[in-house]
């Protein structure tokens, strides 16, 4: 059987070219991807660094505010403020302090038990 050699040869060349293009495309994409990834790593690295700095700043700020609050609540500061405001507040004499206990709340269900009352018989 005679075969069309010319056509076969063309088909082979086209396939090889296609493969070459595909390979080049793959290699190119891999290279671009590699560079893109490297760039992303660099960008993310910078972002991490920025966030680390920001976190440290916020922690410092937080600590500073906590210290400030503690200072404002300190007995010395409160005494000073009282002096400045001249409110005439003094510590009560122990004899002037009356302490009372809160009445204990009795649940409804336990009322009879608590009071000793009889449940209605009718």
């Amino acid at each position, binding site marked *: 059987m005679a075969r069309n050699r010319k056509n076969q040869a063309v088909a082979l060349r086209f396939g090889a070219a296609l493969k070459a293009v595909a390979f080049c495309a793959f290699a190119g994409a891999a290279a671009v991807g590699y560079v893109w990834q490297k760039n992303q*790593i*660099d960008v*993310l*690295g*910078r972002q*991490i*660094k920025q966030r680390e700095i920001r976190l440290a700043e916020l922690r*410092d700020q937080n*600590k*500073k505010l906590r*210290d400030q609050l*503690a*200072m404002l*609540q*300190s*007995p*010395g500061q409160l*005494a000073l403020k009282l002096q400045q405001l001249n409110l005439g507040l003094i*510590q*009560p*004499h*122990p*004899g002037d*302090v*009356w*302490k*009372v*206990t809160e009445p204990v709340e009795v649940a409804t269900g336990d009322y009879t038990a608590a009071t000793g009352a009889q449940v209605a018989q009718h």
Partner: protein
Amino acid sequence: MEKKLQHYRFVLLGGLLVGAFALLAFRLVDLQVWRHEELLDLAQHNTVRRVRNPARRGDILDINGTLLASSIKVKNICADPSLLGNLQAAVARAIAPVLGVDENRLCEKLLATNRTTRDGKVVPRLYVPVAQQVPVEKWEQVKEIMANFPVPELERKPHLTRAEKLFLQGLRRRAIAVDGPDDQVRQYPQGTLAAHVLGFVGRNPDTNSIDFGQLIGVEGIERTFNKKLAGASGWRVIERDCRGNEMVAWRDQDVPARDGFNVVLTIDAVVQTLLENALREGLSSSSAANITGIILRPRTGEILAMASLPDFDPNRVPHNAELRRNRAISDFYEPGSTFKIVTVAAALQEGVVALNDRVDCENGAFKFGGRTLHDAHGGHGILSVKNIITKSSNIGAAKIGLKLGERRLFDYLGEFGFGLPTGIALPAEARGLVHPIKEWSKVSIVQIPMGHGVAVTRLQMTMAMAALANEGWLMRPMLVNRLQDNSGRLITRFEPQRVRQVVSADTAREMVEALKTVVLPGGTAVQAALTNYTVAGKTGTAQKPGPGGYQAGKYIASFIGFFPADNPEVCISIVLDEPKNGYYGGVVAAPIFKQVGSAVAGYLHIPPDVGPVATNTTLSHLNLGSARTPGRLTLNDN
């Protein structure tokens, strides 16, 4: 011929190429194989840095969270004079006021643009320290000033050369910079409050230590809890690019720092303030050489306040070591009559005497061992054991000591903790001075029962009194309540610790009955009585020993008491060294006790046990946090 020439040319070119490639290959092998280690080190030296990440020193807080000691972040600032051009004076003028340094001195530093190396070469100076320990806010201001530093002659130009651009960039970004990692300084926001308890910090002088130059506790809690407060430094191995920025992806080891724990004391800043204010007034009115006060909870041994005046400001540590010494634990003294509580309690416990037994006090003069003992508060005839405490009879105490005997007296000294450190979490605690029996003189057996011939610390004596208030249980003094991390999470809680029961609860109660009479009319400390509370206590007045015997006119006056006597919440000790205006404990120390006691009782909401208030109300304790909740006790036997 033409072909041959072409062939030669081809061979020559090929040979040259092969040779060139061979040379390159040789160089490659040289760099990558033979000199690999050397070049790797060099490359890493240029790019890799091990950055220390210092830990933040923990805070010291009082029981209610009041800040007593804290650390603030600071930076050390340096300059590169080679980047300043001829603007040294202008830069100094701009940043000196912010940094709080002298402008002229700073200018001089910046003008030193060259330095001579060891081998005599003159090289540009690239580093000049400008200011140490600059707060972050000030550094931010300096950075802002430098970032916008005006250089009019360059700013006027429409186009700058590359060199001019680089100069401007260097001047504004790198000429003034931070030197090394962040540093920290210790701050005591309450000033002198509880200075002797807190202590102070210094810098680690050990050049071999990784923490060289870091804060280290020198005295007080700062020293005892240094390891817990200091935390652990971290580190990070990083690579930098050509601009000096870190390449985060290339980060190698990254060990974060563990900040120091916060130490929460049992000290209550308000109680401490009340005590210190009263002591200051007492020191001023008595003109004493020094005065000491301790307030603690007898049931738990928790110390609510401890002060020794004159004191110091830990923010500016004085050179005078006398001011820095915590006399409450580091000094020992002959306690005088307060020590009678030990003698009488021991005798009661051993059944040698009963509270109502009568003792002949010889009308104030008792001869023993060739010496004559006298009673300080006038002569007494026959007194009951209870009245010996009330009147503080030396002769009565001496006779009880004789009945008790040397061995038993000595044993009880040890039982009450004398001659041994109490175990408080503070450095430099003295043991006191208790001689072994074989070193006792003939009169020791009558001297020691009245508080002479033995030396104790203020804290030991207070703990002994607290033991009687606590049904005979001697507690370990407790100064630290807990350790917590930065976010307030509990790390360790310290529980009260019983040391031992020195006398039975019955004996302790009998002693309390006797001690109650001291503040009643006829007792030695009427001025210590509180309006709404039953006080039990004992005065002490001891002549100070010197090189040639006891020193005339030099006394240590004290009063140690607790209240409410039958349900004690606080034990207060006041000791004055060499008071000038009066010297009896009942005269100079008792009024201070009263002043402190009244104020503390009000603040701690201690339910009164005397007067109409005590009988007419249902007493309940307000829940105001652990320091203000009386009677909280979880015990670990020790």
